[in-house]
């Protein structure tokens, strides 16, 4: 009996919620009278996601506290994580330093949490943004190492890839314009800057569109499998 109710709550209820919500979202894209239904489903999702955030924060705290209590390697970083998390949470929820909203001057805490002058806004602007920008900047080095490996001329396909990349890269620099600028007008199509545009507009666009059409069809088929209840593996089991 208990097993049956557990199955209903863990399998059938989520499946039917997904099916109904999915069809409502689909209909709301085409039938204006159902547009508000789709917005309601979106709002419900946001509420559920907000509630789930508490679970996420709980997981973060549990894992890092366990690491500290066990004195695992690098437990100091776990402590820093929790301290930073607590500080950000307190100054964000408490709206420390937030100026009063001009729109609602009589209401307490009516200003935006990240308004100018707020501690939360300061942390975001002067701590988070520089740190994330640093991570993003690392991408340049990763692009270089990946390109070095991808463009090694190991076989015919790799040679073609290397040649194409060479033309496209060179065609987008001043050096490319200078190198082939001497070509007469009747052969202007062979100038590197024009070849680069041609490759990107014709070959690249054609290949990219083929992938996008495949993705669109795949998304439709996957959605349909979930909406029809044929694919239930996203809940963990097809049973």
């Amino acid at each position, binding site marked *: 009996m208990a097993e049956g109710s557990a199955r209903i709550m863990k399998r059938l209820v989520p499946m039917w919620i997904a099916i109904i919500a999915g069809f409502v979202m689909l209909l709301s894209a085409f039938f*204006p009278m159902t547009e508000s239904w789709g917005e309601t489903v979106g709002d419900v999702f946001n509420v559920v996601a907000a509630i*789930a955030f508490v679970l996420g924060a709980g997981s973060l705290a549990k894992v890092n506290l366990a690491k500290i209590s066990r004195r695992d390697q690098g437990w100091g970083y776990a402590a820093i994580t929790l301290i930073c998390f607590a500080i950000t949470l307190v100054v964000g929820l408490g709206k420390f330093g937030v100026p009063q909203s001009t729109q609602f001057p009589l209401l307490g805490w009516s200003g935006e949490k990240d308004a100018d002058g707020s501690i939360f806004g300061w942390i975001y602007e002067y701590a988070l943004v520089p740190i994330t920008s640093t991570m993003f900047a690392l991408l340049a080095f990763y692009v270089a190492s990946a390109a070095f*490996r991808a463009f090694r001329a190991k076989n015919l396909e790799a040679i073609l890839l290397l040649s194409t990349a060479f033309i496209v890269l060179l065609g987008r620099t001043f050096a490319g314009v200078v190198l082939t600028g001497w070509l007469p007008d009747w052969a202007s199509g062979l100038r590197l800057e024009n070849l680069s545009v041609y490759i990107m507009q014709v070959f690249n666009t054609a290949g990219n569109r083929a992938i996008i059409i495949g993705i669109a069809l795949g998304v439709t088929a996957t959605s349909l499998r979930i909406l029809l209840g044929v694919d239930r593996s996203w809940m963990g089991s097809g049973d």
Partner: protein
Amino acid sequence: MISSALILCAISLDSSGASDVGLANASITAAGNKADLRDKIPLNELGQEISAPPAAISISAEDVAWDAGGAIKISWQPAAGTTSATKWIVERAAGQGAGQGPWTFVAEVPIAETNAVASKLSPDASFFFRVTAVSPNGSSAVTTTKSAATGYWNFFIGAKLPLFCAILLVSACVIYFILAARRGRPMKVRRIAALEAITDAVGRATEMGRSILFVPGIQDMDNIQTVAGLTVLGNVSRTAAEYDAAIEVPTSRSLVMEAAREAVQASYLAAGRADAYNADAIRYITDEQFGFVAYVSGRMVREKPAACFYMGCFFAESLILAETGNSIGAIQIAGTAESSQLPFFVAACDYTLIGEEFMAASAYLSGEPDQIGSLKGQDVAKAIAAIIIIIGIVLATGAAIAPQGAMPAALEWLKGVLGS
């Protein structure tokens, strides 16, 4: 008398819309003396007075058919002849104000165009519209609609009809082949190397005594790629449970963490290894994109997982993760439908599920006839798309060769049907 002469002079400089200009300057004439008037009427480089552009002769507004009721099309007739105006400014006012305002900006339109669409309006609400021609010399008189126009709700959004038909067609193909598979029709699916390699990757991790890292993207459960990633996670975790390999799933969304826990727990139960399930191995890190990347990259360098799976929606972090995994010598399998990230995964990973392969992974791994049938339906829809593309190529080529024939009309018709 002097004022009147000035007005006539201003009118004479403009060959069209004289009455409008006269009306526009009438208030100026009545308001002040000659000095005031000279301040208000602009002069050209020769010191000659220049008139403001002529106003539109008439303006009308009508509901946009087959929409959600939030759009009204405004059309106007410009004055005949040349004008120095560069743009039109369209404004609206609520219908209750009887066209008296207050006026809200709707659109700025190049002078060559004579219509605009006011969108995002409240359905069933009425509005007056007015248009003004603007030139460097000033603005014309306003031309206002005689009556208020209303954007009505419609049953169906007509502009989306081609998309709706395409979805119906694809759905019909998919459902037909699901039913055919249920009736026992054999379905053959080509081998997907990346999915076949999952067992090898998990086996390698087991032999090396190292963990498996699975990253289900950085988007939430409302993204179909995340859902597709979790279906692959179910299969990977089941294999890991059977091989007794440790699996770690860092997530950037709390809801994904909960769904991933359900998927992994169910897999461990199905493998008969419920005792080996560790909920803390599936953990929430942060919603912040690069904060998440910093954690996962650091974890990879410290723990050196033997197999890394990236299945879901990725953006700039794709290359950072894949290159870090490559540097630690992990076997890497990626899958995403973000076409801009595919080259990075292809360059840095051992196997990559490209777009539709990733979406087909769940069906492929399940091996269920129903789901395999849906892949067949997807293939038929793809064949239909290919036929339409070939027809389009033939028509476009024909239209380029013979611009006067029937091909251009046919091409335009096809473009119209496809909604481009």
